[in-house]
Every structure is written in structure tokens, then in C-alpha cells.
């Protein structure tokens, strides 16, 4: 099917884009990489009056160091992140995750900002941001504000970004040598949306696990940070070997039933993935 008719604007600056959002309000949709939006338009699931194409706004791209943070422009293509040495040095979890996002042709256009604002519960990048405790930098008519990842992803396809705001960048605390990262996802085929996935970030003091962030995806309407399970694992790290009990996860995850898996199966798979990551860290 073909996209319905819409109006099209291509602002050149963030200020212009904000002006467009103010003017057109809920009649407008922002076009970033287009890898989700264009599909939705082609299927006529979406019928916005106006598309605001932000692909020409240079200031939205780029990967930089800002003090002890890695700052990634919202329009940075996923492929660029995949091959960036700054990212592999300072946010290696992103480097681990990106090759699992769809396929190369999609990643050449898809953007980190687009994925984050779309907030698909089965997407990898939102969970990655939660695991890394990243900050979403938003610009609106009242200026700039920062929103932590856990507060940013609120509900099914719903974020803390206001209708008149634009996500301009993501900032991630730089990884240090006492940190390890883990990523696992279960898919039927490479590049599929995950049945269940896990992004993990850990802090170590020699062989002792001192802090752990477990961000699961496709286990609910948004990425879930399993804080109790994580603190249990840290507390019991020295004693327990691979027989680590992950029963707390039963209470922290409440996934939906769907065609791919029942709720119980998803929780079980989440535990499987967790064990795999922990095992990797032990070796």
C-alpha cells in the first residue's frame, strides 16, 4: 500500500523544528530515520497531516566527549554507532547491541534518537539506555532539559518527551575499567524483534560484583530495571555459583502473553538470559 497524502516540512535548525512543532501540534509527526514511521505510513496505520523531516539538521548528529560523558546526537545513524571507536571505548554496551538491531540497510538510516523516542517495548536501544543510566536531552520552547532513562520510558510507546519537544542528544556516563557489560536476546531469526532481551551493566571491585543494572526488554510496555534481583545477585555473588536463584524476577517482571511466548515463558527466558550473562562474567 502507498502512504497517504501529507504536508512536508524540512527545517534546517533545531529552533526551526521546534517552531514547526509548536505550529502544527498533534497534527504533525517528526520524521527521523523513517524505518518505523515510513512503514507505518505505507501501511496506512498512520495518517498525520504534516511530516517534520529532521534529517537535514546538522546539529543533531555527532558523537562527542563532554566532560566525563559520551554525548550522541539524536540523529546519529545506528550504523555510525556500530563503527565508532569512541562508542566502543566509552559505551561498549552500545557496540554489543547495535548489530542485533534489524539489518544493515535499516541501520544505515535508523537513528538512535528515533528508536528511543518511538520506544518500542521490543527494541534494544531503550533497554540499553536504562542499563547505562543514560540521560535523554530534550529541547523545547522553554529550553533544554535532561531526563534519566528510567523516567523517560513511561508506558507502551509513551515517553516523557512532550509534544512540543525534540530529543536532541543522549548522554551516557563514560565506562570505566571496573565495569563489564552484557547483552543477550532471544530471537527466532537474526534481526527479529526479541522475544525477550537483557542489557546489563555491572561494577566490580577486583572479583567482587558491587553494582548491577539489569534492564530487560519485551517483558512489558517498557524496559524493566529489575532492581531487587540485581541487588540479590550482588549480595550473593561470592557464595553462589551458577545455582544463583533468580526467583525475585517472578515478582519484578509481569510480561504479556502473545503469539511468541506466554508470560511464564518470558519470565523463564529472562532468567535463562540472566544466567548466561552472569556465567560469562564469572569466566
Amino acid at each position, binding site marked *: 500500500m*502507498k502512504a497517504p*497524502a501529507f504536508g512536508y*516540512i524540512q527545517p534546517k535548525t533545531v529552533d526551526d523544528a521546534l517552531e*514547526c512543532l509548536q505550529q502544527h501540534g498533534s497534527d504533525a509527526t517528526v520524521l527521523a530515520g523513517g524505518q518505523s514511521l515510513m512503514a507505518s505510513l505505507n501501511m496506512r496505520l498512520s495518517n498525520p497531516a504534516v511530516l517534520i523531516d529532521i534529517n537535514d539538521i546538522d546539529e543533531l548528529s555527532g558523537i562527542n566527549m563532554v566532560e566525563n560523558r559520551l554525548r550522541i546526537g539524536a540523529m546519529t545513524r545506528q550504523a555510525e554507532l556500530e563503527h565508532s571507536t569512541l562508542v566502543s571505548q566509552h559505551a561498549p554496551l552500545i557496540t554489543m547491541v547495535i548489530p542485533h538491531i534489524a*539489518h544493515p540497510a535499516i541501520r544505515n538510516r535508523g537513528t538512535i534518537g528515533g528508536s528511543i523516542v518511538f520506544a518500542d517495548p521490543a527494541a534494544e536501544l531503550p533497554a540499553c539506555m536504562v542499563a547505562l543510566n543514560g540521560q535523554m536531552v530534550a529541547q523545547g520552547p522553554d529550553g533544554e532539559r535532561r531526563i534519566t532513562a528510567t523516567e523517560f520510558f513511561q508506558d507502551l510507546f509513551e515517553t516523557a518527551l512532550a509534544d512540543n519537544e525534540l530529543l536532541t542528544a543522549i548522554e551516557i556516563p563514560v565506562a570505566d575499567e571496573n565495569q563489564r557489560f552484557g547483552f543477550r536476546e532471544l530471537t527466532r531469526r537474526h534481526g527479529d524483534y526479541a522475544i525477550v532481551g537483557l542489557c546489563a551493566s555491572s561494577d566490580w571491585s577486583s572479583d567482587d560484583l558491587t553494582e548491577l543494572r539489569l534492564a530487560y526488554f519485551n517483558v512489558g510496555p517498557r524496559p524493566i530495571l529489575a532492581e531487587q534481583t540485581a541487588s540479590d545477585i550482588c549480595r550473593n555473588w561470592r557464595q553462589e555459583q551458577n545455582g544463583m536463584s533468580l526467583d525475585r524476577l517472578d515478582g519484578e517482571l509481569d510480561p504479556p502473553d502473545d503469539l511468541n511466548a506466554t508470560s511464564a515463558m518470558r519470565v523463564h527466558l529472562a532468567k535463562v538470559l540472566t544466567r548466561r550473562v552472569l556465567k560469562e562474567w564469572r569466566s
Partner: protein
Amino acid sequence: MSDSLAVLMGESEISLTVNGESVSERVPVRRNLADFLRLDLGLTGTHVGCEHGVCGACTIRLDGRIVRSCLILAIQTDGKRVDTIEGLSDDGHLEDLQAAFHARNGLQCGFCTPGILLTAAELIETHPDANREQIRVFLSGNYCRCTGYHAIVDAIESVVRSGQEKREP
């Protein structure tokens, strides 16, 4: 408000380079690149399969990188460079791959083939030493209903091998 914030409706003029040639056309704002190539320029080598980015049949090169032409608006390509199967075939860019696909029976109906060739070409450029597993992963976004993929992987692998042999001192 500046001019760039005027809302474009209906149709618009675009100028871009397609297969090395300058092209100027008036296109509907809502037309995607795949349809523009096929309907406005008669370049029907680019195929339309799923129209939502998963099958890979519409894969072309935009500014040197593979993308899904069904997920890009024609008007977004103003000022850019597009290369399709026709251009990349004509200029010999896909010679080795095409010969290998012939030799290994890497195509039957040919519907997926332009997309697969363009994807394989980018694989070889970015991963000149790709093994079979890496070939399969890179090609995972291109669906083939005829061959069962094995012959396709064989063909690409053979091109990787001859590339390696050529590079050996």
C-alpha cells in the same frame, strides 16, 4: 517564519544523481523512492515486495550505502546520489558477484536478486574476509523464496575467497 518552514503539499521538484546521471523531476510528496525509481524513471530493476522494510527487495544505494528505498521519500533524495542495480551492473561494479551467482545458481526467479547483490556488495566492501556465518547474518534482511539461500551464500563466499586470493602476496 523562514521559507524552509513552509509546508510542501501535493508535488515538489527534486534534483538528484541517479546512476551517475543528473535527474530532475516533479514528484508527489508522498511517493517513496522505490516507486519514484520505477514509475518516474523506468528503473524497474528495484523491486517492491513488502513495502515496510523487511524483505530487502527494494534495497538500493543512497550516498554510497545500502538502504530500503520503500522507506525513503523521493523528496528526501534531493541533492543526493542514488545507485540502483542497473547502474551498478552497467559500470561493472557487481561483475564478480553476478558471475558467481550464475556459476552457483544463486538466483531462480530473480525477484530478490537486485537487493541481494547490492547487500552482498556492501558486505564484501565492509567485511572482505566474511565467513559463511557472517554472510548469513549480513544477508538476514533479504528474503528469497526460491533458492533456500544456500547457493546464495556459496556464491558470495566464492567472491570473498577470490578476493582473499587476489590480496595474498
